[in-house]
């Protein structure tokens, strides 16, 4: 039976840049375990004759021709940016807290 520990949830939260309080960790860890458990039940019906799949449709080789298509202008691209400078996206200092 898959189980996800409180430490693992804390680790995932860090990776996902989500700040969780101790109380939230206590609350979420068992919930995530239940979700994992439910999904794991699929393994019970997936017999050896059912190949694992990552896609809902049985397609391969969907390719696009190497032909340019108009995209966004710089103004459009930057319109959703909280901050922009020199026609670039301004982002908080990288690796500020030594990730």
């Amino acid at each position, binding site marked *: 039976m898959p189980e996800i520990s409180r430490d693992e949830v804390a*680790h995932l939260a*860090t*990776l*996902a*840049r989500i700040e969780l309080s101790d109380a939230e960790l206590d609350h979420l860890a068992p919930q995530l375990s239940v979700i994992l458990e439910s999904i794991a039940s699929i393994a019970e019906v997936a017999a050896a004759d059912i190949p694992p799949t*990552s*896609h809902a*449709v049985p*397609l*391969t*080789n*969907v*390719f*696009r*021709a*190497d*032909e*340019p*298509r108009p*995209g*966004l*202008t*710089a103004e459009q*691209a*930057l319109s*959703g940016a909280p901050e922009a*400078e*020199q*026609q*670039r*996206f*301004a*982002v*908080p*200092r*990288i*690796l500020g807290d*030594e*990730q």
Partner: protein
Amino acid sequence: MSTQTADTLLSFEEALERFDPAMGLEVHVELNTVTKMFCGCSTEFGAEPNTQTCPTCLGLPGSLPVVNGKAVESAIRIGLALNCEIAEWCRFARKNYFYPDMPKNFQTSQYDEPIAFDGWTEVTLLDGEGAGETFRVEIERAHMEEDTGKSLHVGTSGRIHGADYSLVDYNRAGIPLIEIVTRPITGAREKAPAVARAYVAHLRDLLLGLGVSDVRMEQGSLRCDVNLSLAPRVSAGSTTDVPLGTRTETKNVNSLRSVERAARYEISRQAAILVEGGSVLQETRHWHEDTGITTSGREKSDAEDYRYFPEPDLVPVAPSRAWVEELRATLPEPPREHRARLQALWGFADLEMRDVVAAGAIPVIEATVAAGTTPQAARKWWLSDLARRANEQGVDLSDLPITPEQVARVQALVDEGALNDKLARQVIDGVVAGEGDPDAVVAARGLAIVSDEGALGDAVDRAIEANPDVAAKIRDGKVAAAGALIGVVMKDMRGQADAGRVRELIIEKLS
């Protein structure tokens, strides 16, 4: 923290007496497709920031990627040129990480199903010790992925550490990349740095021959990460397997020379730690071109837990065997065979060919010969004046502002007797300075040889008159003295005379 303090180093020679280096080279090559890997945005280099983006490469909600078929074709051809197996079926995967150079918060890459794997290539050492020696490099995999955006770090240091904030341009985000990964290269010992350099040079030639990339290291379309570790040296002939040591990964080494220097530096640095009984930290290191050292970067930590999973927005790539064979038939002659064939064709001695290869002059000489110049004349121009210029400017020969056709035209003018070598050099100066084609430079600078026999004869007469002693010697049969008079005439004619003809005239007049 960034550690800029000087590392303790062991001399390269001593390091090699005690340790054997193992290297793994990761080369990222940007493909020269017209559009990005998963969207139709242009890939042109040097555009204004954020003018080549769309909802897909910006990772906006609701956008869907579609694979660039041409990029898959290039990936397969690269795999085949590296003697790889081509996957019958493979998928893209999401490499999840939070770093603003990827607006999607993941990079679409390949994980355990690379399109090409289990290959090899052979690398020939060019200069220094062991020149001509061949090393076989095993290729672990070549996989498809996308490039990241370009960050500009604003702040005091200009580097990541200590930056106050960063500015990102996503024009580069999504450009098709192929990552080519070697298996550990062992047994090269003191030649390891040279092998690393030769391998990257070899890949560059191979990719250029395939026509799949611009392979311009200075523009970042070919980048190399050098993984290096040391293991205690085993005596020759020992069959004991010594496990690999802890490795460091030196990132984005962006010139052939730097590949070699960075490998040498890491060997000396790691050896100094190990002889003191310390242990090498597994980490990313940054190469500093200016000071020739590496410094500590991010430590590999759980921040690099990428949680790969199959990309649900893209369907698998399953190249049919027929397609693979069709692409195999398009492969050009491999660089080594190509070199051997050209050497025979051009009649160059081994040493001459080695210099040509080392200067990266094969393509330009080929084009100059195609434009009608003899191979030796083409070699002379590209390996003397032009190689020196390229070297001074730190660019490739092909990046100089003179084309093989223009060099061929200059040589044609020499062959016609319209220019001598000295004038030809000035014409090349003019072309490189942007004064136009060789003929335009000749006209504008008035550089053609004076073929007016009358003017030449007058100059010879003046020289004889001004140097009666020398003239007397020549009259007495000391023909060698003519050199002094030729010099005087050439100076009088401002170099615009055919020295051979001047000599003939002097001898004629004084015999």
